[in-house]
């Protein structure tokens, strides 16, 4: 978005319109009391389960994504879920401060595809116990992702 300084933050109504208009995004939603809510069915691939997700968004915050159904923790069967925020349980889809998400970006073009991706790696993780989607956890050394993947691979072999 560099050099396009004239762009403004998208309003909740604009986000809602984009969500409704995008042919890859199903679901329904509303804007009420300065808060966008969008409930969307997501099936990452034909092999995956159908999930129901709810996106909530208030100006000045990042959109939250919760999975309403099925229950992720039941599927994980006691294992701690990777890449989530807790209380309430939400997916961690982007690195805060890295401008992967900004209020100028469209939810239907960022948060929704990232939810597909999260659920895709999640179902593999359920079986393999290995999160193959890369990423960072709070407190991680800010080192290149590739090195970390290599170190994990060495530890596994």
């Amino acid at each position: 978005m560099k050099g396009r300084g004239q762009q403004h933050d998208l309003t909740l109504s604009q986000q809602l319109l984009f969500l409704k208009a995008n042919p890859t995004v199903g679901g329904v939603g509303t804007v009420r009391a300065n808060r966008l809510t969008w409930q969307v069915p997501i099936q990452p691939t034909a092999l995956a389960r159908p999930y129901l997700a709810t996106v909530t968004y208030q100006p000045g915050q990042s959109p939250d994504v919760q999975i309403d159904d099925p229950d992720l923790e039941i599927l994980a069967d006691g294992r701690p879920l990777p890449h989530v925020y807790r209380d309430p349980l939400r997916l961690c889809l982007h690195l805060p401060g890295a401008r992967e998400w900004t209020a100028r970006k469209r939810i239907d073009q960022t948060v929704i595809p990232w939810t597909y991706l999260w659920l895709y790696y999640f179902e593999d993780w359920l079986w393999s116990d290995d999160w193959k989607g890369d990423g960072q956890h709070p407190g991680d050394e800010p080192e290149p992702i590739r090195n970390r993947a290599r170190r994990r691979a060495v530890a596994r072999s």
Partner: protein
Amino acid sequence: MNQMLRQPLTDNDIRRRKQIFSILDELGEDLDLTETQFDRARQSYSAVGDWLSGSTDPLLVSVLVYLHGSSALGTAVKPIGRREFDVDLICFCAGIASGISPAVLKAAVGNRLKEHATYVRILEEKKRCWRLNYAGDFHLDLSPTIANPLCINRGELVPDRALKEWHPTNPRAYKILFDDRAALRPTFTGKIIAMQRDEGTVEPFPVREAVKGILRRIVQLLKRHRDVFYENNTEDVAPISIIITTLAMRAYAYCVRRHVFEDEMDVVVETIRMMPHFIGRPTLDGRRGYAILNETTDGENFADNWNKDERRAPAFYAWHARALSDFEALRDAVGQDRLSLNMEHSFGPGVTGRVLGNRINTVSEGRKSGLLSVAPLIGLTTSKVTASTAVPVNTFFGDR
């Protein structure tokens, strides 16, 4: 078949089951001889044939060495726990009358192989055949045969285990019959055809054309399932490959000629379900025995051992029941993790990890190169699809 009782498949079921078959197809390819291995085996066996033909031994005047067994049929499967494939060869000594002793002919072949500076070092004597060990790649098992004058189908005779008698066999006619049946194309219901037409250009991930046909994949997958099922069993009662192959090809031909199928997974499961119907139960010495006959020559019963060892028939039925329920579970799996788990149980962790790892890498590579998108009905895809939404770069974050 219970066709009437089944719920009709949804469009999503059809897409899901198509992907499952595609994954099983990839699994079969992973278990197969590679093109390079096959070429090396072909070069090696044609060199062996030339060497045997060059012998001055009158027993070996007109020798034909040809491929038989799974590498000839296209149903080879990587063995569990070792690298070498079995490549079976017939050394057909066409000029010999049936009076000769199997032991004498086998010795003549062995003596000729020992005259070769390389073969003598990699030669190993087995009960009925000679083995040439090409370490790390494959071994060639060379069985001598002679013409069977009683067979109207140009069959052959092969030594028995004790090297005392000749037994009828007909590998060349068997291969022709198998290839004919493998070439039969199943008929699918209009629904899947319409969907394939509408979505014909849309594959979630690049899929190769299934050149092998369904029958060869079924045989490969069943053999691998058998290997895993009997991996830790030391009784040596696992059903032999020729039995699995014969029952599968008969069941496949039967089903394909009579049924209209929902999709490939339907063909796989119904073929497996029908296999036991082709086991004959003749009365032998006053008892009901078992017969899985070679249809291409008289007198070869692949289930001979079932009549000598009473553990073998139950071992087949136990394995078959498990195979049927495992393939039904594969067909019906919803959730990548459930499919992965079923595949691991059925075919082993190694090949499952390789095949599913390749798929995940396709997504991860597409993500890095910006080619990954989300398409309506399909979900994540690396194919170019109109009306899809690109997946932008992100870094998953959050608590561990």
